[in-house]
């Protein structure tokens, strides 16, 4: 059994508004300071007490830039979780490991993004690390690359295309109740979905995640300390990162191909936590694209290629009564996208009972990391009674 299971908890969440990309009134470092300070205040911890700093992907607001503004007394631990959105729950695993190993006591896990002059966020996010094979052949964006995999999911693996639509519609349905959600005014009926412009077949506009300016931070402390703070703790039961043989940087030569690359981390997560798909109350599923959300559900064992069409239906995916309430804040598609960090905030709110689309009495809350990434991760959070 894992030695980090239930030993740490998220005790504070801080989030700036989601701004349209390129329109944040503040640069990303200021957004980042704001999110960390808000998360500390919500928890009842002085920002100067934060001694661990962990982010993922191409984050540039690093500990050395944050500490003067936070009044940091001592940085004891700082790390970056590889590689893109795949690293988010992995960042939590690093935080939990550092705390359990006595290397840090108050850890901020965060991401801040604001589009700088003329450079699309997705280009920053790609970190100038796209292999020539793609660029020479007209492929540069995640939507195109993941479209190849979605085409395979639908055409070769037989998963109905309607599952992609259901994933998108659940996001936009939940966003309508969420005042923070950037897509809250969009009614995504079948017609609107079908009429949206094609981006990279089979993906249309509403299959794609947003790109927003903003920052989001959570504060992680030991389970012992969590009991004495202001918020109901969201215990980290498991947050494995990695990839099985056949995954990694393989320029579309990965095996298996069409799902999210999360079968390995999901298996470890179930084993470490002691829970199974049937036990989960609510899910925040990272969706760069809807087909990858479908792939994540398959990799985590919520359904198979064969029964995906029966399980991934709109009615089933919505709170409060669906069997598999998914992306209850609107998620990456309809709430907003700070490289997926908004999902972590929502996973925590569900355990506190404060979501705008609350699943009654949620005790086990799942958050999946960037699917289809060259390495990826997943996390299961629980209330005290799940420990």
């Amino acid at each position, binding site marked *: 059994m894992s030695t980090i299971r239930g030993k740490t908890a998220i005790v504070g969440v801080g989030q700036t508004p989601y701004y349209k990309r390129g329109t944040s009134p503040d640069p990303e470092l200021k957004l980042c300071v704001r999110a960390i300070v808000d998360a500390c205040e919500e928890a009842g911890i002085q920002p100067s007490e934060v001694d661990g700093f962990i982010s993922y992907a191409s984050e540039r607001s690093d500990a050395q830039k944050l500490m003067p503004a936070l009044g940091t007394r001592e940085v004891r631990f700082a790390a970056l979780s590889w590689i893109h959105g795949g690293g988010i729950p992995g960042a939590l695993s690093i935080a939990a490991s550092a705390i359990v190993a006595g290397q840090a006591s108050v850890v901020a896990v965060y991401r801040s993004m604001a589009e700088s002059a003329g450079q699309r966020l997705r280009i920053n996010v790609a970190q100038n690390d796209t292999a020539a094979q793609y660029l020479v052949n007209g492929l540069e964006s995640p939507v195109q690359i993941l479209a190849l995999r979605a085409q395979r999911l639908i055409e070769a693996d037989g998963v109905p295309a309607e599952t992609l639509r259901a994933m998108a519609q659940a996001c936009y349905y939940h966003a309508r109740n969420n005042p923070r959600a950037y897509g809250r005014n969009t009614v995504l009926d079948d017609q609107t979905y079908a009429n949206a*412009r094609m981006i*990279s*077949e089979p993906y249309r506009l509403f299959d794609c995640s947003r790109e927003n300016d903003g920052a989001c931070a959570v504060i992680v402390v030991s389970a012992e300390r969590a009991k004495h703070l202001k918020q109901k703790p969201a215990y980290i039961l498991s947050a494995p990162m990695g990839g099985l043989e056949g995954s990694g*940087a393989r320029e*579309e030569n990965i095996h298996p191909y069409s799902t999210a690359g999360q079968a390995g981390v999901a298996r470890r997560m179930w084993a470490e936590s002691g829970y199974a798909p049937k036990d989960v109350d609510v899910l925040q599923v990272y969706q760069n694209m809807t087909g990858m959300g479908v792939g994540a559900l398959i990799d985590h064992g919520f359904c198979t290629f064969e029964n995906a069409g029966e399980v991934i239906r709109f009615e089933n995916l919505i709170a409060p009564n669906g069997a598999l309430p998914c992306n209850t804040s609107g998620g990456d598609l309809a709430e907003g996208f700070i490289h997926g960090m908004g999902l972590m905030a929502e996973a925590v709110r569900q355990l506190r009972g404060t979501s705008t689309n609350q699943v009654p009495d949620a005790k086990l809350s799942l958050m999946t990391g960037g699917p289809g990434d060259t390495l990826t991760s997943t996390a299961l959070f629980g209330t005290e009674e799940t420990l």
Partner: protein
Amino acid sequence: MQFSYEQHRIIGGIGADDEYWRALEQGEFKLPRCSGCGQWTWPAHYRCGVCGSWEFVWTPLEPVGTVYAWTRTCYAFERVKERAADVPYVTVLAEIPAAGNARVMGILQGSEENLRIGAAVRGLILPPSEKSKHYPSIQWTLEAHR
């Protein structure tokens, strides 16, 4: 020989595939095979993960395979803006049975009728051009339309 791709080198990914581009620029389709255990290693890498050998034989192949996946790009993306005038265009990921089912990307040329996963394709090697960022490239054509 001065290679065009070397003058316009793209940094990213594993980066062990120089021999692929050199061969392609000379009109040959080659993929690397481990000289120790025979494993096809694509994309190219520095060491065979199966047997531990550091030696690879770049093996000439006939550019024939089947469609493993495809997408039709309908938007002019910034980093491939050289192809903006061609939008919409189809990129095919072709599986090469003679190379351990290695998958190789290429633009689909010619008719798209009956484009489907599993369809047979044949590659045509194109010299470096602006569209392919001054790299040589493979264009796939559906065998049914040759």
